């Protein structure tokens, strides 16, 4: 679809709920993965793909004029795969082969293996640079697509993020939008305890970026911020989306150690009930 029709917020919330269920099934079945990191960014990705933000053609994944979405926090691959299946890039059955031998649905996204994956990520810190490359390429090709890059918060500890931030401002990449999934936790614990990132707004501003903050689970707020940054000229924008790691499943929200592990089948049943509202 070249321009996604606007979808009602209530419908987007329902899509987000179904995507969480997909993520839950994928990772539980695989027995590994990063469900909580995927849950925290579910509304962000839902708004992008299904809220009319991204222009794309699922049957022509390399359509030169497409808007780009780069999942820089590659461990949220299940979320990306859920979106790609729902958008029609890949067969839905494929996502149930996550992390299995002979499947293109790799543990972390691999470019040129699965349609719709714009960059290989999983070693953190790399996606924003690819985004800058797509901006420069669009400029040379005289195309006016936009480039969206989803960053993790822990990922912002990596120096390459700031190299790319500097370059994006230098090249006045005003069609580049970073979204920071600010769930406040990294693998081993709270970010403030492990490697403090604050003041984040000041950091991005000082690097020459336009900064917006959003409630990362409020689709309407996210859509408003995506619309607002389209008007920004001469500098890149970042939406710092405040999120909850594991959002949607209470006992995952309460335990950051779910970062790198799937739910057990018993936990998954509880989570399923909670997401379905039957608990």
């Amino acid at each position, binding site marked *: 679809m070249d321009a996604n029709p606007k979808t009602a917020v209530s419908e987007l919330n329902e899509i987000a709920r179904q995507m969480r269920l997909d993520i839950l099934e994928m990772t539980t079945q695989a027995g590994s993965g990063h469900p909580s990191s995927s849950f925290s960014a579910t509304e962000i990705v839902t708004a992008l793909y299904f809220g009319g933000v991204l222009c794309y053609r699922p049957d022509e994944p390399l359509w*030169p004029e497409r808007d780009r979405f780069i999942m820089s926090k590659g461990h949220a691959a299940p979320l990306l795969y859920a979106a790609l299946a729902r958008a029609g890039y890949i067969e839905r059955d494929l996502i149930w082969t996550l992390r299995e031998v002979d499947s293109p649905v790799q543990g972390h996204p*691999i*470019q*040129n293996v699965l349609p719709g994956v*714009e*960059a*290989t*990520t*999983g*070693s953190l*810190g*790399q996606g*924003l*640079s*690819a*985004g*800058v*490359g*797509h*901006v*420069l*390429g*669009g400029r*040379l*090709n005289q195309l006016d697509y936009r480039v969206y890059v989803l960053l993790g918060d822990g990922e912002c500890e990596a*120096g*390459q993020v700031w*190299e*790319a931030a*500097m*370059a994006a401002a230098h090249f006045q990449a005003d069609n580049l939008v970073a979204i920071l999934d600010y769930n406040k936790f990294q693998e081993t614990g709270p970010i403030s305890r492990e490697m403090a990132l604050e003041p984040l707004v000041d950091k991005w501003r000082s690097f020459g970026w336009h900064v917006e903050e959003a409630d990362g689970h409020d689709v309407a707020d996210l859509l408003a911020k995506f619309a607002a940054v389209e008007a920004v000229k001469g500098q890149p924008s970042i939406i710092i989306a405040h999120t909850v790691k594991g959002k949607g499943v209470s006992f995952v929200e309460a335990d950051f150690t779910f970062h790198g592990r799937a739910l057990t089948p018993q936990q998954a049943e509880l989570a399923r009930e909670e997401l379905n509202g039957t608990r």
Partner: protein
Amino acid sequence: MELGKQAGLKPYPQPLRNVFGEALLNVARDNEKVVVLDGDLGNSTKTEYVRQTFPDRFFNIGIAESNLVGIGAGLAACGFVPWITSFSSFLLCNAYDQIRLAVAMSNINAKVLGSHGGITLGKDGPTQMGIEDLALMGGLPTFVILVPSDPASMHAAVKAATDYVGPVFLRSSRVALPEIYPMDNCPFEIGKANVVRQGSDLTIVACGIMVAAALDAAAVLAKEGIEARVLDMHTIRPMDVDALAAAARETGAIVTAEEHLLQGGMGSNVARVVAEQHPVPMRFVGLADTYTESGDPDDLLRKYKLTAVDIAAAAREAYAAKAG
């Protein structure tokens, strides 16, 4: 430098890095999809020629090698042919992870220049020297690895790398190298080694600046009645298995010569092929598990045993081992 003197090779007035700069300008002129990314060393790598002629297709990303590679990968995804350029030491050692994920694993159409390979880069010392680049690149499946040996082969290699669809690493040197091939007629096929001297008593397999040194060594050995074949192994991967098998079978002894660590470089890859195809006595000329130091390139080559004299000595040993 006196490289190629004993073999009667004609000196070339310009350093190989300048030849690279001209070759890059040529492919940029021929192919409008070629873009050049610089790690703020364009005046050393000579990518500045492209900057001067095609400023719109030249990007100085600054002293940020990780970002340099990532942006290059993004441009490749947009259909461009990025030449990602810096000193091999800085680029590979800083941005190995980015080259691994964004280029090699993604199998994109990007070209990586590692300039100032080896120890012959003036007096800047070991921090700037790329003595481990071939070993590092060897750890990245999907990459073609090229090491041109003279001006004509540099032109041919840059063109072949640009035309090839997929990741290519090309090593360049700062020094001037003599002419081995005619400027207008250099045979260069990726993966096909060139026999630059015929011989049946042993084979010297060399790459980069060591090809001229190998020809010098062969000239010395000829006076002793030993006829050495010299193979220019300009492609380290994919390696020309047929040429090596023929060399082992037909000449019965092999010496390798490279301006690189012995660990993981050309020689160790040649040894694996020879061991599988047709084991024969081998000797290895290269850097033996050491960093070097500042100094005049000729002095360094002598001190670290990377000269025609060292190759000839290794050849005599290999030849004797074959006879014994």
